[in-house]
Structure formats: C-alpha cells, structure tokens
C-alpha cells in the first residue's frame, strides 16, 4: 500500500510539472496585464506542430525544439503587438475575449496548415526509465519535469537578476511610475507575452511526447487555470506549487478514488480556493478603493 501511495505521489509530481509550466505562463501574463490567456493551450499546439514538422524534415529534437519555441515567441509578439496592445484601456474582459478569439483562430489555422495530422515524435529522449525499488519513473515524464524545473529556475532568475525582468516586475506594480523611472513599459509588455509564449512552446513540445502530436494537447491549457489560481495568480513560485498540487490531486483521485473523477479534481480544488482562500496560497489580498 505504501509503495502504491509513493508511486501515486511520484506520478502526481511528474504531471504536476506540466501544469506548473502552463500555470507559470498564465501567471506571467496575468501579473503584467491582469489578463487570463485562454489561448495558451493553442500556443502549445503551435509549438508542438512546428517541432513535429521540423523533425519530419530530419532535424533532431535539439534543433527543432528551439526553432519551435522561437516560432511561438514570434506568435506571442504578434498577439501582443497586433491585438492585446490595442485593447489596453478597455475593460479587461475585452482582452480576455480577444484571447478566446485567438484560441479559435489558431485552432482553425492549425487545421488548415497541418490538416488534422496525428503523429508521435520518432526522436527518442536520452535516458531510461528510472526504477527505485518498486517505483518506476518514466523517462519522458522525467524530462518534462526537468524542463518544468528549468523553466521555473530560468523565470525566477529572469525576474530577480536581469534588468528586463526587474523592469517587468516594476511595471506590473505601477506602470506609470515605472515609465517615469525610464523603464520601457511598452517593450516590457511585449517581452512578457514573448516569454509566456515561449514557456507554452516548451510545454507543448514535451507534453506531446506523452500525448502524441494531436489537437487534444491544447486542453492542458484549461487545466492550468486551477493550478494558477491555487498558487496565487501573480506568484511564480505559486504557479509551481499550484501545478504540483493539481498534479497530485489528479493522481491521487485517479489511483485511490476513481479514474473517472480525476477529470474534475482540479476544478473541485478551484472551487475550494475560491470559497476559502481567494488569493491562493502565495497571492496577496487585494484591497479595492473607489
């Protein structure tokens, strides 16, 4: 029994990594613009399909994955410059609805470009499944988790040590003040979207190792919302913790209660968060003034 519990926890941690990266991407954008990016799942599939197409041409993973991420970065930039920027000043709802619009546009365009392809990556990830006693950790999930951890470390360093990152934090806090201090706020917003899109791209490539290359992968974007809310919507470490807790909840529900109920486990968590701790685990409570 203990073995099983341990294995369930390991599984939960591993898939939690995926939710954590997607949640982080949402959190970065929310922090800077107060917008929920519903198109995150679709950006993931763009990265996934691009990497897949490049590998079809015979490029190895370590060349095609960065190119795919670059494509998502350009996509993020285009979304920000073309749409999101023009909606600043309008109610937040307009921006969120625009991300929904992007979701549909991207879905349709992917169908036109890739014509309903379904496939898997032929390129194997280095390494073997890890076995510790009775516990088995599958190789591709380990890689996904490592990538998630790397992404978190990268983002943390970015926000705390680099000039652009610090600028992003400053402009998220107080845009006008940041502008007055000479921080190029408009450029910062673009960087935010590019960074978030890049993270989505990375997630897309690695998630599809597990799920295969197909459109359903985009549904991961939806399950990241409970994770990001649980962590505290503006907090980067919160996204990591939230993602892992959501992963654990799914794994434990599936393994101990009923696999069918695992679908709604993240959303039950979401409801609990909304009812008892709206600001999430690491978020700050907001006080509103008239």
């Amino acid at each position, binding site marked *: 029994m203990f073995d099983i519990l341990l294995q369930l926890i390991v599984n939960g941690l591993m898939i939690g990594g995926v939710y954590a990266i997607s949640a982080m991407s949402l959190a970065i954008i929310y922090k800077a613009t107060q917008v929920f990016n519903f198109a995150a799942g679709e950006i993931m599939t763009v990265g996934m399909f691009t990497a897949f197409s490049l590998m079809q041409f015979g490029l190895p993973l370590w060349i095609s994955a960065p190119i795919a991420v670059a494509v998502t970065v350009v996509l993020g930039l285009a979304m920000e410059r073309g749409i999101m920027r023009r909606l600043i000043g309008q109610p937040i709802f307009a921006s969120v609805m625009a991300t929904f*619009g992007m979701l549909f*546009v991207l*879905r*349709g365009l992917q*169908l036109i470009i890739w014509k309903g392809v379904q496939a898997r990556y032929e390129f194997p990830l280095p390494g073997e499944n890890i076995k510790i006693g009775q516990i088995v950790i599958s190789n591709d999930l380990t890689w996904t988790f490592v990538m998630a951890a790397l992404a978190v470390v990268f983002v943390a360093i970015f926000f705390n040590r680099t000039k652009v990152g610090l600028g992003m934090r400053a402009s998220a806090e107080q845009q006008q003040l940041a502008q007055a201090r000479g921080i190029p706020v408009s450029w910062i917003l673009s960087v935010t979207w590019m960074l978030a899109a890049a993270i989505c791209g990375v997630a897309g490539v690695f998630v599809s190792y597990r799920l295969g290359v197909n459109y359903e992968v985009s549904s991961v974007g939806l399950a990241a919302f409970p994770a990001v809310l649980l962590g505290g919507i503006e907090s980067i470490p919160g996204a990591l913790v939230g993602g892992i807790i959501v992963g654990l909840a799914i794994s434990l529900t599936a393994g101990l209660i009923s696999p069918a109920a695992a679908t709604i486990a993240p959303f*039950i968590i*979401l409801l609990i968060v*909304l009812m008892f701790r709206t600001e999430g685990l690491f978020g700050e409570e907001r006080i509103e003034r008239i």
Partner: protein
Amino acid sequence: MSVDRPGGIYNQNYAQEFIMVRTGTQWVFLLLALVILFTLPLYVPGSVLNTVNFIGITLIAVLGLQILFGLTGQISVGQSAFVAVGAYVIAILIRELQFSFWAALPVAIIVTAIIGLIAGLPSLRVKGFYLAMATLAAQVIIPWILANTWTKITGGTTGISIKAISIFGMLLDSEAKLFFLIWLIALFGLYFAVNLRRSRTGRAFIAIRDNELAAEVMGISLYRYKLLAFMICSIYAGVAGALWAAWSRHIAPEQFTLHQSVLWLGMLVVGGMGSNAGAIMGVIFLTLVDDFGKAIAGPLGQLLGMPPGVMAPALGPVLFGSVIIIFLLFEPRGLAHMWAVFKSFYRHNPFSY
C-alpha cells in the same frame, strides 16, 4: 444611456416614460415585423426554419447572459452548463415521469434557478475573472455530473432521447409547430429583458456593473442583486434548455461545452454588451457568419488545393475568432452601437448633430 428620439417627442409625465411604442410609424413597423416573423413558416423551407428555431433558443440563452453580464457585469463562462440543467430536468421529467411539457417547464426553471443561485454564491466574495473561474468550474463539473452519476436516469454519456413533445394536445413534430412555441417564448423573454432594464432592479444591476462599491454605498444590496442577476440568467438558461430538449429530442452532456458558452459570450461582444437589441443582432450575425463560412469553404478549399473536407471545419473557428477580435478592436460597443450611430445619422441628416 442617452436616448435619441425622433424630433418633437418628449416625455411630459411618467406614463409617457413607460411607453414602449411611441409613434405611429413604430407601431406600423412593429406590427409588420411581427407579421413577417410569424408568417415565416408559410414560405420558408423547414431547413431554414430549423435554423430560425435554433436562433430563437440561442437568443433566450444569450438574453440571460446579457442580463447577467451586460447589465450586471458578472462574467459567466458556464451558461451552456445551466442550459444543460434545464434540458436534462425537462427530459427526465417527460421521459421518466410522463410529465407534460407545461408541467415540467416550471420545475426545470426552478431547478436551474437554484443551481444558478449556487453558482452565483462566489460572486459575493470574488469578482471579475475570479468569478469567471467559478463558472468555469461549473461548466466542467455540471456536464461531468450529468455524464457520470445516476447514469440510470441521465443516460450517462449517451444522454437522453425523448419523443416529440405535445402541448395542448398538439404534437410538436415539425419545425413549423416548434417555431411558434420557441418564438413566442423568445419574444416574451425579450419583452421581459427590455422591461427589466428600465426597472428599479435593472438600474440597480447597472449600478453594480459600473461600480460595485459606489452601488453599495448608495444602498443597493450587492448580496441581493447579484444573486438575483444570477437567478434570472439561469431562468433564461433553463427555458432555453427546455426548448433545446424539445427541439433536438436528444440531449447529451457533450453538447453543452465551454465552446458553446464562449460562443454565446462572443455573440454579446459582437452585438454590443448591455443592449438587448445587440443580443439579437449578435446571435443572428454570428449564425450568418457561420453559414457564410460553410458556403465558401468548398470553393476556397479547392482554390487552395486542400484535401476535401478540411476547409469547412477550419474556416468556422477562424471566422468566429476573427470576427470577435475585429469587433473588439474596431467596434467594442458592437453592432448595436453601429445601428445607433446610423439611426442618429439618419435622423439628423443633413445636419451633423
């Protein structure tokens, strides 16, 4: 909202303020419109009527959303889950307990209203997109419950099939017969929505939308009015669901998707938030856009040398997404505003004011 009336029409007492139809011309247009609408079954084929019926059902759901979101400012991405509740209640009552449609309708409304109230509870604590998250949870959890629990009654993922319903001894087995049921209810719903907007409750809703704290300071009970808005919205959803079941004769949890809810929000965006006329225009406009996509997909696909059958499904989402984005960027107040601008231009022509 500023009211732009034809020249020479002023309100001199409260009774006049309440009048909906003011001039003879308006009466003529109204009657003409009603006559055209209700004689549709005489001269359009059933397939068009089928679309018109679905427009009617969608309109009811969107009007509910309009009251909750357009008037009160509470975002819901779970409307189709509430429609599902209405549809399931009515289907179960009709199939399992042999209720008549009229007997089952109030039950469906009450059940949906209660579920809507429960879903609205977080609105007292959270606002904006936190609230949207609560309704997102409802959108995921409600269809899941319908699919996985009490499967003997709900039919699980297969759903429920019912026979054509009958009202007042008449079997509603054709599009034309359903048309009258759906559109009479839809017009009543529209009348209610229009009146609600002008009432004390409606003004309280708008106050909450514009500034919650200010509204509360003015003595508007947030607790009461937010829940009321959620309840009214779910009542509309319940009615839409009941009509959906009668129209489709088969319902399944997979029909009531997040996609559907977002589509309805999109209709509000395109039509113009906060305007009932906008809701109507949005519903019709997006339905037409979808039909337009289907019509041009074949030739366009051939032009681009796509394998057959790929273009149509791809074009639908692309058109819908682009229309929403274009409206958000260039006309965030929607078709209703465009219409108002046109009316004002027409009235004041040749003067520019």
